């Protein structure tokens, strides 16, 4: 066999192996969570708050953490959209091409993307102290928003950049303003990508533990106000795994399963929505 063919085969092998590693990792995680968590999974897990103390409770469920996580993730995602979308539209519709401000801001977001979430937690905590807030749902939403804004912005930016300039020109040439073009054309054309960006950010928001330790705190109760502490699934998993009791540790896997299920459901729903919206996209 000649050398080029061998090269070709070696690289094909490496690519297949890498793909295999990814798929197997996902399967391995799912199987572990299901095998370890399923035996203690029951209705009570998702319909009741913990009984017998958050750390040690072997009864009840993690409804407090489910609701807390959903509130937190939806709240922070909403706040992040309010910040990210205008930034991205400014970058791609309003700003001059090659603007230094834009280049610098993009670079800053790239750095912020890499900042560990515990630092956002600490930063959020300082802001809360400044405003005299205690650990609360609001505090958690603020900290998580800091964490996900750079992620959402850069992910949206990458797709909005792909909108062909001629499409903007077509809209301008019909007498549209930049604002009209931004909202009626650009966001529409980039909608599937924008939804994906929101989803990525939501995933980070609901899965993060470090940023909420100091800011959202935890509680056995379902938060009924923005100013009350809120439990979150990642922290519930962390605490449950940290106990010396095998029964409670098993509940951590059940909690993980619930967290994965939530992310899966949100992904599937947004995929369906995306497909529905993307039929008008110009290719």
């Amino acid at each position, binding site marked *: 066999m000649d050398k080029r063919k061998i090269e070709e085969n070696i690289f094909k092998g490496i690519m297949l192996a890498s793909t295999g590693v990814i798929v197997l990792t996902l399967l391995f995680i799912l199987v572990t969570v299901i095998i370890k968590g399923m035996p203690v999974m029951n209705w009570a897990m998702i319909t009741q708050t913990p009984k017998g103390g958050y750390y040690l409770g072997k009864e009840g469920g993690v409804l407090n953490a489910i609701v807390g996580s959903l509130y937190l993730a939806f709240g922070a995602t909403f706040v992040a959209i309010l910040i990210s979308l205008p930034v991205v539209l400014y970058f791609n519709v309003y700003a*001059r*091409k*090659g603007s230094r401000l834009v280049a610098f801001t993009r670079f800053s977001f790239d750095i912020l993307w890499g900042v560990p979430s515990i630092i956002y937690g600490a930063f959020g905590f300082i802001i809360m102290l400044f405003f005299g807030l205690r650990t609360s749902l609001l505090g958690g939403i603020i900290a998580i928003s800091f964490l996900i804004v750079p992620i959402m912005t850069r992910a949206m930016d990458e797709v909005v950049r792909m909108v*062909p*300039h*001629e*499409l*903007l*020109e*077509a*809209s*301008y*040439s*019909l*007498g*549209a*303003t930049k604002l*009209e073009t931004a909202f*009626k*054309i650009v966001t*529409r*054309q980039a909608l599937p990508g924008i939804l994906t960006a929101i989803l990525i950010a939501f995933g980070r928001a609901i899965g993060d533990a470090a940023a909420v330790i100091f800011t959202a705190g935890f509680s056995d109760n379902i938060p009924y106000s923005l100013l009350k502490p809120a439990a979150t699934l990642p922290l519930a998993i962390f605490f449950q795994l940290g106990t010396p009791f095998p029964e409670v540790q098993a509940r951590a896997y059940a909690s993980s399963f619930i967290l994965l299920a939530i992310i899966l459901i949100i992904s599937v729903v947004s995929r369906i929505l995306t497909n529905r919206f993307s*039929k*008008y*996209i*110009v*290719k």
Partner: protein
Amino acid sequence: MDSNSHICVKDLNVFYGNEQALKNINVNIPNKKITVIIGPSGCGKSTLLKSFNRLIDMVEGVKISGKILVDGEDILDSKAEVTHIRKKMGLLSQNPYPLPMSIYDNVAYGPRLHGTKNKKELDSLVEHYLKESSLWSEVKNRLRAPASKLSIGQQQRLCLARGLAVKPMIILGDEPTSALDPKSSQTIEEKFLKLKNEYTIIIVTHILRQAKRLADYVVFLYLGQLIEHGEASEVFENPKMEMTKEYIKGTIS
């Protein structure tokens, strides 16, 4: 100056950075005729066209001096309202870019922007302009379908309908047939010949034969300079300038 012209260009200079794309252009575009801008690639044809509706503003590092009077109003004046200027001109670009919405909404986009909200009024506008661009019979049963599903020739006619729907007086075409198959190109050309009774049409093309078929008035640009302009019959049959002669013979391109 010919006061009947919608568009009078006076001492127009355009720079991209340090490069001068257009040098001292002075020309009057005759009304309700087809003016064709010809010249080799990179001669500034598209730049001139984009100056007319100020899409040139979008280009990075562009500097413009001189005047372009549209109905007596200098559109290069910083006080001029850009959306108002653009509303007067429909643009057909090289590749058709339908907006990411349905066929109906594409045509209704402009009228809606400019304040037409009434459903019945919009319905009749959409029908009228789709007929005007000879697309109606092909799409009347699927007005709600995505515009991107149309063939490229249909898309270009949709873009024409979309442009006409803002009731412009001027139609700008930037090599409007260069991406189309011969049949679709022919349809568009026929459209132009009909539309010139009501609109002032300015087309950029690098296809000489197309220019000869369509032009009433010809503007010949070379390296950013206006070499010759005049009635099509004169420029094509009896060019005054040596360079025009050579371009038409095909020795320079």
